[in-house]
């Protein structure tokens, strides 16, 4: 069966009639050899009025063969020739008949436009998409606020179990990794500080560096970025796949508000967990810094602590902590917006999960910038 002949198509012109003789295997696996034959045969410029195709020698024939034959016949017909098919076995007639009805409407050619127009279009689309994103974030904030109001009026409608469960996932289970990362960042900061301050003999200022930098900026920033990557992405993926499977629609048809049931507990958990994690993270970073300062710079813990007391005040600590819940809110809202925006495909889920992390980290840093300006203005 595998010894079937390669497809053949031979043409001879007799008067104004082109006679084609086909043989061999006209199937999918031979389509590659067959297609050039179809396109070339009999195209030597001699005038032809009619075409007769003898299919008697064809051993196997499938949709690919049938379509190529049909294409051949259509090409000749388009040139005003009469075409005739002879000796095609009855079993293949049915298939030929079926194929004759396909591809009657030609596909619209994809429009080509200049690179310049394409760039302009892309820029426009990106801007519109960015605008819509902002709008959706504001809308989600509004929905969440409305849900908070409703819950505040009737506290019993709060999904307390759900909040606790989310709190465990995004807060408690995140503690080890957050401690580890911030501890390392604090140590590295101290090592770099010591190394550079040593040249001026100002090693002890490394305590100021660590204390202010960690408490004001780094502690909360690193924790927020970690949470965006760790919990924001999972929120998006969860809500997204629930949307794909119509679970969110199911909730809505039961007269329940998905924002209240799915979004609110998640965002509440984040708003509670991120400040706690930021506090723990800051402490771990200072601890790491103190260890390195002791081991590497010879600043013993007593000196470190007393120096730290002079370097920072309550304001420094507050500046960092005030930012934490706002960053948590951004992570939660962006994650839920992106989750809701997931369409039917697996690719869409992946795209929105990435977008969720990228956008929330970007917005966290923008927000941090605004806070820096604000705190400078109020003198904190």
């Amino acid at each position: 069966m595998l010894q079937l002949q390669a497809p053949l198509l031979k043409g001879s012109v007799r008067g104004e009639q082109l006679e084609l003789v086909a043989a061999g295997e006209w199937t999918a696996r031979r389509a590659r050899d067959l297609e050039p034959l179809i396109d070339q045969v009999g195209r030597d410029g001699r005038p032809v009025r009619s075409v007769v195709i003898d299919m008697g020698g064809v051993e196997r024939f499938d949709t690919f063969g049938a379509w190529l034959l049909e294409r051949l016949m259509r090409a000749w017909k388009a040139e005003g020739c009469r075409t005739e098919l002879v000796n095609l076995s009855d079993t293949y007639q049915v298939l030929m008949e079926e194929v004759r009805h396909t591809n009657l409407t030609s596909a619209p050619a994809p429009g080509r436009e200049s690179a310049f127009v394409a760039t302009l279009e892309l820029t426009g689309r990106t801007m519109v998409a960015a605008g819509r994103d902002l709008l959706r974030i504001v809308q989600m904030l509004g929905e969440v606020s409305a849900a908070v109001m409703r819950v505040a009026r009737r506290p019993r409608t709060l999904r307390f179990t759900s909040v606790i469960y989310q709190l465990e996932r995004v807060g408690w289970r995140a503690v080890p990794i957050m401690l580890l990362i911030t501890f390392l960042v604090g140590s590295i900061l101290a090592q770099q500080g010591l190394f550079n301050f040593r040249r001026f003999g100002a090693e002890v200022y490394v305590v100021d560096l660590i204390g202010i930098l960690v408490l004001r900026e780094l502690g909360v920033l690193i924790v927020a970025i970690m949470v965006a990557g760790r919990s924001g992405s999972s929120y998006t993926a969860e809500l997204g796949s629930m949307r794909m499977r119509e679970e969110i629609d199911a909730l809505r048809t039961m007269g329940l508000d998905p924002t209240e049931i799915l979004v609110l507990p998640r965002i509440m958990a984040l708003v509670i967990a991120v400040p706690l994690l930021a506090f723990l993270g800051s402490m771990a970073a200072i601890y790491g810094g103190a260890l390195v300062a002791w081991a590497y710079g010879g600043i013993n813990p007593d000196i470190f602590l007393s120096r730290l007391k002079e370097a920072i005040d309550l304001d420094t600590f507050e500046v960092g902590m005030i930012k934490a819940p706002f960053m948590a809110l951004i992570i939660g809202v962006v994650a839920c917006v992106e989750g809701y925006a997931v369409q039917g495909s697996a690719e869409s889920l992946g795209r929105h999960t990435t977008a969720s992390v990228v956008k929330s980290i970007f917005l966290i840093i923008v927000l941090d910038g605004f806070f820096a300006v604000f705190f400078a203005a109020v003198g904190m």
Partner: protein
Amino acid sequence: MLAPAHEVAIRVRDLVVGFGDATILDQLSLDVFRGEVLGFVGGSGMGKSVLTRTIVGLVPKRGGTIEVFGVDLDKAGAEARRATERRWGILFQQGALFSSLTVRQNVQFPMREYLQVSDRLLEEIAMAKLEMVGLRPDVRDKIPSELSGGMIKRVALARALALDPEIVFLDEPTSGLDPIGAAEFDDLIRTLQRTLGLTVFMVTHDLDSLHTICDRIAVLADRKVIAAGPMATMLASDHPWLKAYFRGKRARGAGLTQERG
């Protein structure tokens, strides 16, 4: 069609399949003849899909042999195995279309992987297949999540037929379709089976499909094929499960029993 009568396309002998402690199929034997439509029935959770998935190699077996076109798939080398795999197409129950590809790309996918043909031919063949399964040309650029259940089944069928296979496995092709859609789909399978000379292995619960398009029916119960033959054999049987299945209330609704009267 060209083959002599009763040439065996799929031969299953003493097949044993199980998961953990549970044995799903025990010493099961079954023949599928070339050019026939075989309906495969059995209760839910009895292992119908497991058999299909075992034949196509998605589920490992514990014992027995499976031959497709006389090739024992366990003993065949990678090359021979792939050659055999190209000779079958599978319609999964939920369609299993690639969700991030358009309808046209879904149908072209197997062709693109296996055949080195021009883009023009790919395009034309994909359209021809889509039209043969009864879809209008304007669905080609939709993505699967924009399609209705019936359309998904049709696109999945077009994809299963992409390489002009000789055997198609259909896993509950009419489930989830309305009666009119199901009847149309039955007709479509029958038409394509005749046109393309297919061997069809169809897992189904649809008594109408069994009645109208299946040449033979095989019944799975007690981890074995307990009966195989045309509808008349099924109706004549005294096995309690067969009686309940083919002569129950729903069967009467499908007009099966009057025929015997």
